[in-house]
């Protein structure tokens, strides 16, 4: 088996990694689009011409309602709105925008002829970020819009950074697999989904046999390559975009198999063990052969007494299976039942393990 460094290439399955649904780095490079809202067509046209000349992309709306329709379909970073308009006024538009604010902030700049201090305060209270009185020099209007561009750009950069950090915080940098944080975040969700829809869910606890000896004999680099190879091998044995695995400690991994009963988990464990046994990992220190011990458990809500398995019980059951495999000398896969289930009750009555390979 050729060791591949997958760290940073993530094609990891599992929930929470839909790139298209999250703001990414691309957003930071978008041109600033301004939505000009004014019921006066000539004012709209004048402002649009000024803004286009300053390299902004411009959309325009003749009413607040029209503005909301445009914003529902077109990403606009800045809203430049008049106050007094037929039907919905600029203040109401501001409040609407703020009430519907998503993770993408819209910078609102009110451009109105109302110049009173109370008007300004009302505009800001309604959610406007800035307030310019019509009649201010064009240079001032453009300067304020430039501030809006700067702030929205900064916000986008922050969101992109947060997005990247969010990804990094859920990824094991060595192997590129998910990490313990991801497991503790998403396994409860998988369990909840399993309980709600009555679908089975299997969890495998895997431990590389003799990992300390690999490190001692071949060096840490070879040990790290072995871990990466294990991840690549495990990923080839599970369903893409559905099953997922996480590294939970040095040489321990959890594999989560939604919609899978214990028999399906057994097949995955078997495939994994066979795949690892087939090829030694090629490292710089030479070929490294290793095996894996697997503990597995499955929850099947339809057959459970209380219909809900706790996260701790599931992890404990998988670990019980893993310890049983280790006790048998490693390179084994052992299924264990989750406490509180009918299967566990049957096992307690008969005093037998659910299943042992």
């Amino acid at each position, binding site marked *: 088996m050729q060791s591949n460094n997958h760290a940073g290439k993530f094609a990891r399955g599992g929930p929470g990694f839909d790139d298209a649904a999250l703001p990414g780095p691309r957003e930071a490079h978008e041109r600033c689009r301004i939505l000009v809202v004014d019921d*006066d067509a*000539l*004012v709209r*046209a*004048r*402002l649009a*011409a*000024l803004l286009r*000349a300053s390299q902004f992309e411009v959309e325009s709306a003749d009413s607040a309602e029209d503005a909301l329709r445009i914003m529902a379909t077109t990403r606009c970073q800045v809203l430049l709105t*008049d106050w*007094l308009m037929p039907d919905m006024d600029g203040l109401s538009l501001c409040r609407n925008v703020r009430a519907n604010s998503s993770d993408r902030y819209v910078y609102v700049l009110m451009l*109105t*002829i109302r110049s009173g201090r109370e008007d300004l305060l009302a505009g800001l209270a309604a959610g406007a970020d800035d307030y310019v*009185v*019509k*009649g201010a020099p*064009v240079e001032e209007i453009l300067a304020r819009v430039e501030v809006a561009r700067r702030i929205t750009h900064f916000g986008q950069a922050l969101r992109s950074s947060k997005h990247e950090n969010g990804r990094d915080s859920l990824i094991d940098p060595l192997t590129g697999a998910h990490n313990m944080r991801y497991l503790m975040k998403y396994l409860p969700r998988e369990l909840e989904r399993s309980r709600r829809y009555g679908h089975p869910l299997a969890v495998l606890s895997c431990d590389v046999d003799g990992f300390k000896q690999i490190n001692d004999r071949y060096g840490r680099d070879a040990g790290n390559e072995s871990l990466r190879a294990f991840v690549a091998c495990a990923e080839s044995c599970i369903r893409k975009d559905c099953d997922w695995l996480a590294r939970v400690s040095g040489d321990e991994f959890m594999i989560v198999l939604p919609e899978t009963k214990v028999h399906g988990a057994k097949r995955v464990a078997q495939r994994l063990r066979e795949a690892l046994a087939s090829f030694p990992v090629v490292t710089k220190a030479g070929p490294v052969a290793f095996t894996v011990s697997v503990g597995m458990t499955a929850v099947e809500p339809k057959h459970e007494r209380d219909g809900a398995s706790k996260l701790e019980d599931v992890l404990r059951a998988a670990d019980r299976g893993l310890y049983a495999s280790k006790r048998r000398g490693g390179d084994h896969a052992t299924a264990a039942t989750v406490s509180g289930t009918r299967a566990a009750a049957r096992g307690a009555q008969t005093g037998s393990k659910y299943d042992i390979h």
Partner: protein
Amino acid sequence: MTSTRHRSRKEFLQKTPSDGLEELRLAFHARLQSDRVHFATLSAALARAEESPGWIFQDLQFRAHKIRGGAAIFEIAAVEAAAFALEQAAICAVQSNANNTDVRVWASLEALVSLMGALDADAAPAQLPGPDHLLNTGAAKSLER
């Protein structure tokens, strides 16, 4: 950007538009003339509306506000100020349930219409038909000034 304050329509027409902005300015000036005609109509209605001129004051307020905003954007400070005066006068008239002889409204209306007319040298002077019974009032005298 070149200021257009106090510039007549002839001056605008003499200037060759270098970009879309000049065309927009011309369009705004044309609209001011249209508004001027409308004000003349409104003033006639106001002169006749002895009982309930409230809706006329509100219409004057709305139109003055719109002109004020446009004039500010197109940098015609005099029109902006005159429209502001009319807007404020109309607001006061509405709030005080003034009748159709409200001096402040008539004065500010006259001032704005005159100014709009001055912007268009070729345009016929606006006819503001004040009510006959105003001829002997202070309002009429203020209009004459």
